[in-house]
């Protein structure tokens, strides 16, 4: 991790700013993908919710998110355990007041996080689509962007205890994640799981016997277009993350871009093959999920692995995602219209683990020379500790926060609203007003009894 005193060169700063601005394509891609995978009567609602969630995340992060997250070398709260300091939360002032906007690394980090926190916050929308109230999704986003995300991001990117596992306990270089497989993808993924559990499945999704019905997305062309937009965003996200959080030089952006593309390509093609073999024909929505899974898995290790290992990471992600989608939908009765839990959460976990298995660490990611010379022996264990923190701490935390929110502000739309469509019920108008796209939009509204 780059010490605070290090300033990037002017060219590296300019490159970083451009990359961060391009990261917004990742946000756009996820929003478009989620919209394509929902029902036509919820399309406008999904896009509007994406917009509101992104803006709410940025504002909340500005108010208090960065104050909790901070950056390596900046003030933070620590406690001592077994004689070693454990940084658990930053101690920055609110409203970005501690940052000088002079192109310093910390100012670039603040800009980067404004976009990436929005990306993390959009992930749960894929799981809650077709039934998640707009107001509740915005408040839930504020909880994610104001507390859950900054807390874990501090541990990983802010010089917290996970990042210090190498220096304190000789676990490789400490927990590594250049582009956010953990702090963006898995945090978003476990929040998506919490939201899916709290909301419950869409009406008509499961029969009395628990058999899931297929509710296909209304526009797969839109979904695939979102995947391609996301590629641009992810290349920029991973590249900017590698420069800011892994000390990579600007020239390494080429390797990061190649690895990101190859991982996504390997994943989507593998998913096409897997679904082709299992279902007889490749499934378009699962291929889109596989592509996103490849992107999510690519982030952690993108500057640390060779292109060959990047393809391998993608192939495993491409196998993992369709099986995870099936297990969550059929065995665990979790209704996830956008496949967010599998393609961001599960693939992100694989990406974190893959960084421990395949990363060849030669970058100056630690200011401590003795740490830099250490072999990768404890790296896998450091990554596993990070996974344990995600599942054992972040999942209960985000579930608990959203469960409390659900008590105060019910998150699920009323049944008649679900049948009417989120567009008409919550926005008063649909995305496709000229077309009658589904006959049951106009049938008599059923009641629960």
């Amino acid at each position, binding site marked *: 991790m780059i010490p605070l005193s290090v300033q990037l060169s002017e060219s590296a700063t300019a490159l970083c700013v451009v990359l961060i601005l391009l990261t917004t394509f990742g946000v756009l891609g996820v929003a478009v993908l989620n919209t394509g995978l929902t029902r036509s009567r919820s399309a406008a609602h999904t896009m509007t919710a994406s917009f509101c969630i992104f803006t709410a995340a940025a504002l909340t992060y500005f108010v208090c998110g960065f104050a909790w997250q901070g950056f390596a070398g900046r003030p933070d709260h620590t406690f001592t*355990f*077994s004689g*070693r300091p454990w940084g658990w939360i930053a101690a920055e002032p609110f409203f970005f007041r501690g940052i000088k906007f002079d192109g310093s690394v910390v100012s670039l980090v603040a800009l980067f996080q404004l976009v990436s926190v929005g990306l993390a916050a959009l992930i749960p929308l894929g799981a809650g689509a077709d039934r998640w109230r707009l107001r509740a999704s915005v408040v839930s986003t504020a909880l994610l962007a104001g507390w859950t995300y900054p807390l874990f991001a501090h541990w990983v990117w802010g010089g917290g205890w996970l990042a210090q*596992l190498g220096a304190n*306990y000789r*676990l490789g270089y400490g927990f590594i994640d250049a582009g956010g497989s953990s702090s963006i993808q898995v945090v978003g993924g476990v929040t998506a799981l919490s939201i899916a*559990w709290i909301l*419950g*499945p869409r009406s008509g999704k*499961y029969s*009395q016997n*628990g058999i899931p019905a297929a509710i296909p997305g209304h526009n797969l062309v839109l979904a695939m277009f979102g995947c391609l937009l996301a590629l641009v965003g992810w290349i920029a996200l991973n590249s900017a993350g590698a420069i800011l959080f892994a000390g990579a030089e600007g020239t390494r952006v080429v390797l990061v871009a190649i690895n990101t593309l190859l991982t996504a390509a390997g994943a989507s093609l593998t998913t096409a093959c897997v679904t082709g073999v299992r279902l007889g024909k490749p499934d378009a929505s699962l291929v889109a999920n596989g592509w996103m899974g490849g992107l999510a898995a690519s982030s952690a290790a993108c500057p640390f692995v060779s292109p060959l290992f990047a393809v391998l990471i993608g192939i495993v992600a491409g196998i993992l995602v369709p099986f995870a989608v099936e297990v969550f939908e059929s065995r*665990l*009765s*979790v209704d996830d219209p956008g496949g967010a839990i599998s393609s961001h959460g599960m693939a992100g976990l694989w990406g974190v683990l893959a960084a421990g298995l395949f990363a060849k660490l030669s970058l100056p990611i630690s200011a401590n020379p003795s740490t830099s010379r250490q072999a990768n022996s404890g790296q896998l*264990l450091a990554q*596993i*500790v990070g*996974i*344990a*923190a995600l*599942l*054992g*701490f972040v*999942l*209960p935390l985000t*579930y*608990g926060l959203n469960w409390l929110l659900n008590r105060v502000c019910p998150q699920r739309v009323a049944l008649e609203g679900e049948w009417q469509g989120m567009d008409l019920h919550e926005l008063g108008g649909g995305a496709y007003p000229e077309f009658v796209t589904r006959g049951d939009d106009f049938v008599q509204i059923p009641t629960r009894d």
Partner: protein
Amino acid sequence: MKFAGFLLLLSGCGVVIAAVALLAGVARAGFVAAGLGVEALGFVLVVRSHLLLEDEQG
């Protein structure tokens, strides 16, 4: 059951952190694996509680 599941998830995380801080070598790796096992048990409980809840709600 759901509460117990989340408690087990947190406990597993605690076991992992304690293993990292207090142990070394094979014992550390073993207790980290044990902590992950406790987390897996907690996850199964949470999943079971949601399945039962959905069965009750029809």
